[in-house]
């Protein structure tokens, strides 16, 4: 019933001038706030990891292997003196301090999540804008993207890592590439509607060159849904990175990542579950926080999308 929604629109429009700014609305959204606080804590942990009572995350101590959480261990400091230290999260099968590894692992996980999101969103945005606006490119680009989507994301990532060899950069790319088609599809569908808007046609009539039309008039109007999508990509990237590390094909085992720590603890999981428990908690908390932020952003920035779901 158009007329009923017309009334609502009129009511909304009447209320519009006093609508608070986007930032204020975001600050009022409980899920954005809750997720944001958790994520900020994680970010702080990553930044000041050396100051949080950690020791070298790769430091091996054969004497104190497989200690349960809370055990006091003596270890030799660099100057030869012996120090007594409590391993809050226990140690792994090489005697490395799980607490230090989990804290340092935050750095890698967040870095992979953010970097993979930036890579996939920027490539996806560029391809999506062009594919949505240029008809001749659309068919070619979208069939290629369909082809990429036909390969399961994890398998594609595994294939790419084995192709390029393991390392932080290759893992970031391997995690980012399977996400690109999803971004392209989202952006393209937005562009298809935006380019029919009279203000885009007006810009064409004003003689604005095509690249400028895309950057000035089309792109800014795709931003809100794209930010929402980016949070979900970030969460999924962190998970995929952990999964690749867990399978032993991701970032080399000497670099502490949450996936690597869990992979290390896999063999003795029944006896010493702490090796999987603590990085698991950090991983779930982070991914949960990002997803919750994404939901909140969607409700605030893109109310149509939340109604649809």
């Amino acid at each position: 019933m158009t007329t009923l929604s017309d009334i609502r629109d009129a009511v909304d429009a009447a209320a519009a001038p006093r609508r608070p700014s986007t930032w204020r609305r975001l600050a009022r959204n409980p899920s954005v706030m809750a997720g944001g606080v958790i994520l900020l804590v994680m970010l702080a942990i990553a930044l000041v990891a050396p100051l949080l009572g950690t020791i070298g995350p790769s430091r091996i101590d054969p004497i104190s292997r497989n200690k349960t959480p809370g055990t006091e261990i003596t270890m030799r400091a660099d100057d030869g003196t012996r120090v007594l230290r409590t391993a809050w999260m226990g140690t792994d099968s090489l005697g490395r301090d799980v607490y230090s590894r989990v804290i340092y692992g935050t750095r890698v996980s967040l870095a992979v999540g953010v970097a993979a999101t930036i890579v996939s969103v920027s490539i996806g945005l560029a391809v999506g804008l062009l594919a949505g606006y240029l008809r001749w490119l659309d068919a070619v680009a979208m069939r290629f993207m369909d082809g990429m989507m036909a390969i399961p994301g994890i398998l594609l990532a595994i294939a790419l890592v084995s192709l390029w060899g393991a390392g932080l950069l290759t893992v970031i790319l391997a995690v980012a590439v399977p996400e690109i088609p999803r971004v392209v599809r989202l952006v393209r569908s937005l562009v298809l509607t935006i380019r029919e808007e009279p203000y885009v046609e007006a810009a064409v009539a004003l003689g604005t060159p095509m690249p400028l039309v895309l950057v000035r008039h089309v792109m800014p109007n795709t931003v809100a849904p794209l930010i929402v999508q980016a949070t979900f990509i970030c969460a999924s990237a962190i998970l995929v990175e952990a999964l690749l590390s867990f399978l032993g094909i991701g970032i080399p085992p000497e670099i502490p990542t949450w996936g690597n720590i869990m992979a290390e603890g896999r063999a003795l999981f029944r006896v010493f579950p702490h090796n999987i428990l603590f990085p698991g908690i950090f991983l779930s908390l982070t991914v949960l926080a990002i997803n919750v932020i994404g939901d909140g952003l969607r409700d605030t920035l893109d109310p149509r999308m939340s109604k649809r779901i």
Partner: protein
Amino acid sequence: MDGETPILDVRGLTIALPAGADRRLAVDAVSFTVRPREIVCLVGESGSGKSVTGFSVMGLLPKTLRATGGQVLLAGEDMLQATPQRLRELRCTRMSMVFQEPMTALNPVMTCGEQIDEVLRAHTTLDAPARQRRIVDLLGRVRMTEPERMAAAYPHQLSGGQRQRIMIAMAVALEPALIIADEPTTALDVTTQAQILELIKDIQRQFATGVLFITHDFGVVAEIAHRVAVMRHGRLVEFGPAADVLSHPREAYTRMLIAAVPGMAPPARAPAGLKDEVLRVDRLAKTYETGGWLGRKRSVNAAAGVSLCVRRGETLGIVGESGSGKSTVARCVARLVDPSAGRILIGGQDIARLAAGALRPFRRKVQVIFQDPYRSLNPRRTIRQSMVEGPMNYGLGAVPALERATALLDLVGLEAGALDRYPHQFSGGQRQRICIARALAMEPELLIADEPVSALDVSVQAQVLDLIEDVRRRLDLAILFITHDLRVAARVCDRVAVMRRGEVVEEGLIEAVFLEPRHEYTRALLAAAPGKDWQFGALAAG
């Protein structure tokens, strides 16, 4: 008719708006009555509260709106106090509603017969064959040809007018005492609108119902109303017999509204003279092709063999119903779509086939004003950014571009302070002024106005039309004016071309076409214009 108990008696109806709206009350102490066998028109501009009033009678108010006072008496029973269950019983049996958009008001996955049947099943004890007979009878009474076939059809198989007939058949299925029609003809073409208005009058006589007819169009009011209630900002401005209100309005607001309605008779105009040709369109055609590759190809001729010519200082109108191809012609001339055949001569040079690069010098000569002022300005750019974009594309410096923007805003009646605001901070009429200023900033030779006032209220419409007339005279512009509204065409055009199904059926001076139409379709269009016998243009604003 006098002395009868009214079927609907609205007394001091007051409806509150949610906090934070631009006014406190959506409807403020409104009182009027609808008697049996009477059509009352509730007329007003957008935001006047007329639809909210209609919905409150049906008990269909959105949850954010609450009736805070007054009574809505339907045959003596207060609808505002009725329980949801009682309202459900009364809907269809005592009162029913016809909506604006017949496509979305009908369920697309049910046949029309099933949808009428649903009403009968819910409220009557008739058995299936009896209901079937009743459905066919109803469809006959709303003058559907082949009622049996129509009952078996799905909504998408019918035209807009036929769908509206189905809605009316559903509304009268249980012979309610009151029908509320909320802009039932606004989404329809003018010839279809005339048929539906005729049908509503006929139905109202056949079933002896009272009709509350909500509309913004004074032409429609003049056509069907017995009594008129004029609303503004939620208040009832004037209520009385149609003839009185239309010819001797008591309130200044009503006088202003009626004076703003253009008359059907074109005003006397200074002859444009034979100046240079700015645009000549020669046998222009546009064919849209869909499918192909694997599916079967289908093609639609949106325009075929269209030839036109516009001279400097002259306004050529293209009138026609939806789907007649008038917008396609405009978009081809602006090269927003590529024509399939024919020539488009701007200043003597054919631009129909030019590639993007070669087209650039011509872009500045042809500017477009679009129908929807809410969508023709980028919501994320300030007015300043929108205004200087075009001139700066053609090498004008930032400072002179800004000076030009300021001067043009002044010309269209906006202050320079508007430059740093965003489109959502302006009303529809102001936005359309900004769009006109933006087009003029390019110093064009030809201005294409594609339904520039269709989305505006009648009082704002008059101002924008005056502005377009004013800039044409001052800047000696050629204007291609696309409209479906014959009154608007009569007001601003020197010559007019009538289009139907992609072809120009008649073209000539506005007086000749409007006063002595040669083609039968032109005659049908003119005859269908609502309130054509009413001398709207004659009444002076006072």
